[in-house]
């Protein structure tokens, strides 16, 4: 087994026994990135020198007996995380030259544990997209099929794990941006409950929906990484001061006696036959594992996508106002005064989808439309959240598909934003409800593409989510690794 095929827990044992060094491991990853990234394009910035320095420091810690599960483990970050001294572009031309002067809280937490940061990962510009085609750094190619998208917006984070270009990665999820690419790339991705993980230093798309989460090769790694970044942060007023459970301690507790709900609104006609089949098999697996399967209803599901595209774009229109060319980023100024500078900077710096969402959001917040759009959407959001809370009165977890289809082809939906928006139809409600969701592999389509299973948990019940995911993973064998051209 190649070094780069292994998981955090496997590598941790070899690092702590002194069998391998973090520097050697990091070198192996850097080499793998060099070999494979021309075909995947998962990295925007590769931080070779900084990574090797991190690794050398980690080796010293390990030699001194100071080792944590993440010490010396090569990880990578979606390019939405501020990381001191590293270029942080958020997939946008407007931040092409932005070298951040500070670390996001989550990044600081990983560094404190001695993790190695290999680089910054490709993404849809400002996390707006479901295919990673909206990136100034070009599209990411799905490691399973280079003609296909990896999903988005954390497309680089998912593809890098699948292509073994990092042991695990951090992404962000606003409407499915961790879970959908995890599903399309055949890895495990978790969107924590809103407030579980600090957003400080994570470039905002839609502040009331954004949440940081891990993408990893297996459920145990996912639990490890979540445990490392979760927890209250006084620098983020929306983070919740509530103890972080020991996710690893309860990981293998199983699902015997758990009640798993199937929201009937999620099993719709448009669902791809392979996806439907894989999810149905997964349901059978859970039954076999001792779970009770229950039919439930989330009656306001139909409104979720519309509601999301009002709230997220409204917040984005304001969040992205700071990219004005005044203090940082790429400024365009052709001498037409202040307004001209703003217009030229933003016209040249933002891509089409970002502009579309800024305009949608600006409209939704405008005087005379606010009540009909933004305020109404907030009310609908409350109803959607209530749907989930009501369902959780009767069940412990919900089980759904992650996306209606496996990964689609690059270019297939770029001209049809509405079709593109519908690819997040099963993930968006979880963000609106503010609860947690996890995507894990549950099979391959007839075309050999990964299919994802979504588990949705009660607010702050990430531990239950991980238990159920681990039980499934342990009972099945869907964690295959894709063969890249470079591997053949």
């Amino acid at each position, binding site marked *: 087994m190649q070094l780069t095929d292994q998981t955090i827990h496997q590598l941790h044992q070899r690092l702590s026994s002194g069998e391998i060094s973090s520097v050697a491991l990091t070198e192996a990853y850097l080499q793998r990135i060099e070999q494979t990234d021309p075909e995947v394009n998962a990295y925007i910035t590769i931080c070779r020198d900084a990574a090797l320095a991190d690794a050398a420091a980690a080796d010293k810690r390990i030699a001194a007996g100071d080792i944590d599960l993440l010490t010396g483990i090569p990880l990578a970050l979606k390019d939405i995380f501020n990381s001191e001294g590293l270029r942080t572009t958020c997939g946008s031309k407007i931040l092409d030259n932005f070298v951040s002067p500070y670390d*996001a809280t989550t990044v600081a937490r990983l560094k404190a544990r001695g993790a190695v940061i290999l680089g910054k990962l490709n993404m849809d510009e400002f996390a707006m997209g479901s295919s990673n085609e909206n990136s100034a750094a070009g599209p990411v190619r799905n490691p399973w099929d280079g003609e296909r998208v990896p999903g988005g917006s954390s497309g680089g984070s998912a593809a890098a794990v699948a292509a073994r270009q990092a042991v695990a990665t951090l992404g962000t999820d606003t409407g499915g941006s961790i879970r959908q690419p995890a599903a399309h790339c055949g890895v495990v991705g978790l969107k924590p409950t809103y407030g579980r993980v600090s957003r400080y230093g*994570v470039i*905002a798309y839609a502040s009331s929906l954004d949440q940081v989460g891990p993408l990893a090769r297996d459920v145990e790694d996912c639990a490890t990484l979540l445990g490392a970044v979760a927890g209250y942060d006084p*620098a983020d007023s929306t983070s919740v001061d509530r103890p972080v459970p020991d996710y690893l301690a309860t990981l293998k507790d199983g699902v015997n006696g758990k009640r798993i709900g199937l929201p009937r609104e999620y099993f719709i006609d448009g669902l791809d036959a392979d996806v439907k089949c894989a999810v149905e098999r997964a349901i059978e697996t859970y039954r076999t594992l001792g779970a009770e399967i229950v039919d439930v209803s989330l009656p306001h599901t139909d409104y979720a996508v519309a509601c999301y595209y009002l709230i997220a774009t409204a917040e984005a*229109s*304001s969040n992205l106002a700071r990219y004005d060319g*005044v*203090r940082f980023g790429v400024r365009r100024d052709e001498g037409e005064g202040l307004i001209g500078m703003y217009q030229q900077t933003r016209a040249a710096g933002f891509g089409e989808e970002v502009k579309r969402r800024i305009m949608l959001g600006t409209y939704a917040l405008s005087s005379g439309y606010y009540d009909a759009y933004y305020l109404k959407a907030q009310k609908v959001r409350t109803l959607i959240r209530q749907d989930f809370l009501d369902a959780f009165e009767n069940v412990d977890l919900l089980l759904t598909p992650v996306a209606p289809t496996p990964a689609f082809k690059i270019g297939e939906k770029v001209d049809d934003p509405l079709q593109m928006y519908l690819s997040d139809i099963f993930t968006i409600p979880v963000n609106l409800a503010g609860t947690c969701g996890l995507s894990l592999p549950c099979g391959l389509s007839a075309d050999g593409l990964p299919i994802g299973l979504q588990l949705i948990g009660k607010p702050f019940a990430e531990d239950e989510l991980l238990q159920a995911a681990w039980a499934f993973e342990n009972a099945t064998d869907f964690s295959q690794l894709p063969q890249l051209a470079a591997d053949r």
Partner: protein
Amino acid sequence: MDSRYEVVIGLEVHVQLTTKTKIFCGCSKDFGQQPNSQTCPVCLGLPGALPVLNRQVVEDAIKAGLATNCQIAPRSIFARKNYFYPDLPKGYQISQFELPICEHGWLNIETEENGQKKIGITRIHMEEDAGKLLHSDGDSSQVDLNRACTPLLEIVSEPDMRSADEAIAYLKQLHQIVVYLGVCDGNMEEGSFRCDANVSIRPWGQEEFGTRAELKNLNSFRFIKQAIEYEVERQADLIDDGGTVVQETRLFDADKGTTRSMRGKEEAHDYRYFPDPDLVPLVVSDDWVDSVRGALPELPDSKLARYQQELGLPAYDAGVISAERDLAEYFEALVALHDNAKVCANWVMGEVSRALNENGIPVTACPVSPQLLAGILERIADNTISGKIAKTVFEDVWNTGKTADQIIDEKGLKQVTDTGAIESILDEVIAANQGQFEELKGGKDKLTGFFVGQVMKASKGKANPGMVNQLLKKKLEG
């Protein structure tokens, strides 16, 4: 003021708070530092930075609310006010919009025509200030964000004022309160207390308000009065000439004493307010409000009444002393040590204030502490020194920091109360001024002062004037 129309004025006051740090980050808000040195990712509006509310700002807002009779909202919301300007780092200002922390307050002002009048306070809300643009020559400007994110309270009145004088009375009272509370340094020139005035006029008897103009750039009470009076005339002339007032922002030009339109810059902004998703709703418990209320200082209104009713001071004295919190506290410390309040007030308004002014120092730095001053006053009360000698003792205490008793001892200033000694001086004075003494005897009472004065002079001020008077009376009767 113009009498053709009724004037309607509402005021928006921005109060810069005296907190050590900014409203949403830990940066110091020291002014006069190198541009952009008092900044961090949060107040620079860097990607990913998030605001965290400064608790002291909330506490100051509660203080201001309680002192202006507002209701304190148990739950209030921060909102984003969206607009582009280079001094506004995030492209929006965090403020409060629909649910401010304080509402429904009022202040009483004294008006010349109608006595006491209640002015409504619509709301008080918290917000962050913007940075500053430094315009240099040529076509570029520099941005200094040291001031960005410093805490402000915006205090909005009802349109209850009917003249510039009422507006000034309200502003002075509000100014006094926020300075008293210690939440603002009150410096208008430096912009710590700034005011925008909404001014409109309407025909007498009309209920509906006229169209208002918003006046800006008013950085002294005098300018506010000038600006309002100019604006009222302008609107009245405009209407009389058949024109209409347009709703607009007008800048006051202090050099010309006029206001001019800012139109063009200010075209119907849509600020797209919405609740800031980065900040959770602010919940203020009753306990918190109660503890702030319990710690509020006594306000000038209450001191004014108390000084008159309990201490028997004349209204004028009570007004002068209560106007400034530090002076009032000095006075109160003095009164606690010396029970003649009127004498205390005379000294505080007289010698103390004079010496402070001459030396240009605040009362908090007065070298003659209330304890030292009380020591002087005691020696007047027990006839050890006269009031006149006391003034020289005061000078010496000021300069040396010694007690009155030390100085009286060292300089031998103890008043002569020995009847024999005073009588012999009096006899000498009478002998030297026989003619005037006869006139005094003949009923020319005015000459009493002359004789007492001569005795005081001969005794170098040390004779007890009361005893001189008594002895002189005896001589006249004798």
